[in-house]
């Protein structure tokens, strides 16, 4: 039982990382209908920026987190402006293939710049004690990951629902031309979406580094794909779906490990993808919204 709860806690920590990455996938898909396969690599870049902020600039965890988020936001906007914007009216497959190209470019560009060797994240950036709860030891890092994720998700909900730019984002994702008729600058709104999604991926990169301690230039591939599965699981385009999908996927993986199937962890994520595509392709939160005309 104790071990079960321990695994559940691990699953929630891992799941909140998936959720943070999945949010970027789902927001970008919601607005430009593009699966941004380079998103996992933004996550990787975020992990490295956090790493260098802590080791070279000698910063603490929180400043490193903020720097990584800001840098990834700018990086995300650059990717969109340079690679995707010229293809806004092209076929979707052209944009999708471009996204794969951008992904490879970032991965191997990073290897070219700094080599392929992994780095060990300094795990003393935050001095945290683990606490005991009902006889279960919960590491301080798990709590930190969960707390940071929850705060970021609350901030995101606030931005999307209460601010002007958030309302513009929802309007553009629903009907681009109607949004233009309101005077909304569609290009800036799309850039803002990429900025926010990429900042969340950057944050996920830093907390991933803290938790798993090892980072390398290809580390974004598997978490990126799993976050994509999480986004589809929740219903792509739906922000709450990405949160729930991420947490659910993390917990499923952890439970599979708990029953002794650690080697199946990665496979399970894709089994989930296949099952959801067969039985509920719109995702858990997706519904066929009926609109009266």
């Amino acid at each position, binding site marked *: 039982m104790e071990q079960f709860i321990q695994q559940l806690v691990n699953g929630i920590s891992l799941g909140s990382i998936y959720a943070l990455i999945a949010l970027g996938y789902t927001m970008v898909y919601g607005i430009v209908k593009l699966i941004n396969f380079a998103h996992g690599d933004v996550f990787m870049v975020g992990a490295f920026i956090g790493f260098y902020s802590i080791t070279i600039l000698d910063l603490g965890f929180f400043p490193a987190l903020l720097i990584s988020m800001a840098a990834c936001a700018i990086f995300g906007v650059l990717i969109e402006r340079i690679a995707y914007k010229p293809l806004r009216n092209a076929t979707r497959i052209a944009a999708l293939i471009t996204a794969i190209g951008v992904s490879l470019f970032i991965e191997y560009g990073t290897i070219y710049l700094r080599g392929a060797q992994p780095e060990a994240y300094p795990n003393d950036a935050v001095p945290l004690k683990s606490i005991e709860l009902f006889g279960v030891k919960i590491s301080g890092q798990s709590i930190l990951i969960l707390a940071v994720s929850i705060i970021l998700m609350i901030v995101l909900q606030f931005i999307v629902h209460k601010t*002007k730019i958030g*309302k*513009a984002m*929802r*309007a553009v994702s*629903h*009907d681009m*031309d*109607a*949004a*233009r*008729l*309101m*005077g*909304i*600058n569609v290009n800036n709104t799309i850039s803002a979406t990429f900025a926010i999604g990429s900042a969340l991926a950057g944050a996920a990169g830093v907390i991933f580094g803290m938790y798993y301690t090892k980072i390398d230039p290809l580390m974004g591939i598997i978490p990126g794909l799993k976050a994509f599965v999480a986004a589809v699981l929740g219903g792509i385009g739906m922000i709450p779906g990405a949160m729930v999908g991420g947490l659910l996927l993390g917990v499923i993986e952890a439970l599979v490990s708990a029953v002794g199937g650690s080697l199946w962890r990665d496979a399970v994520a894709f089994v989930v993808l296949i099952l959801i595509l067969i039985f509920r392709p719109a995702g858990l939160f997706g519904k066929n*919204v*009926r*609109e*009266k*005309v």
Partner: protein
Amino acid sequence: MLKIKDINVYYGNIHALKGVSLDIQAGEIVTLIGANGAGKSTLLKTISGLLKPKSGEILFEGEHLAGKVPQTIVKRGISQVPEGRRVFANMSVEENLELGAYLRKDKSGIQEDFQKVYQLFPRLHERLKQQSGTLSGGEQQMLAMGRALMARPRLLLLDEPSMGLAPLLVKTIFRIIEEINQTGTTILLVEQNANMALSIADRAYVIETGKIVASGTAEELGESDQIRNAYLGGH
């Protein structure tokens, strides 16, 4: 107020507007009637900046607007109620109205306009928190109109406001269009329902396959045999 001179608009190779010219004086209701595919919506989209004319001029209060982005055009005082309403179905009635005032910063003015919209459309006030996708067609039309008014336009473009509505509701909508006009908003009304449109308009233009083929006061056109046969059911 609005002067369109000889504009040509293309969709790829298709020549959708062929040298269209049109004039609107401040305070008027002008209607543009024509069959499906004649180019009515294309003209409105071009005025709003969603489409760019290949040649020709659009002058609004003396300022050139052809080729400007929609943002600039809304800011200058032209709003559009698009065909099919195009409300943001995933958002509440209130949020839709807020988006109508997206470019404005005068908070007190925006509050005033909320009140004006509620006066014109009490139904919207009752449903402020409701998702607009769940409104009836008539309510969505009202919302689309209220949303456009939130920009405080001096010229309001209406694209087929009667489409898909029951006759009684069409009457209500047209009465409200007249009310909006009486408060000083100039109106360009695109309609297939030519009878209704001519009944409230001061002047009218008839468009056929991308060309203006007739124009005059609403009475003149209403009496012309050619127009009656083509657009008013021949009675």
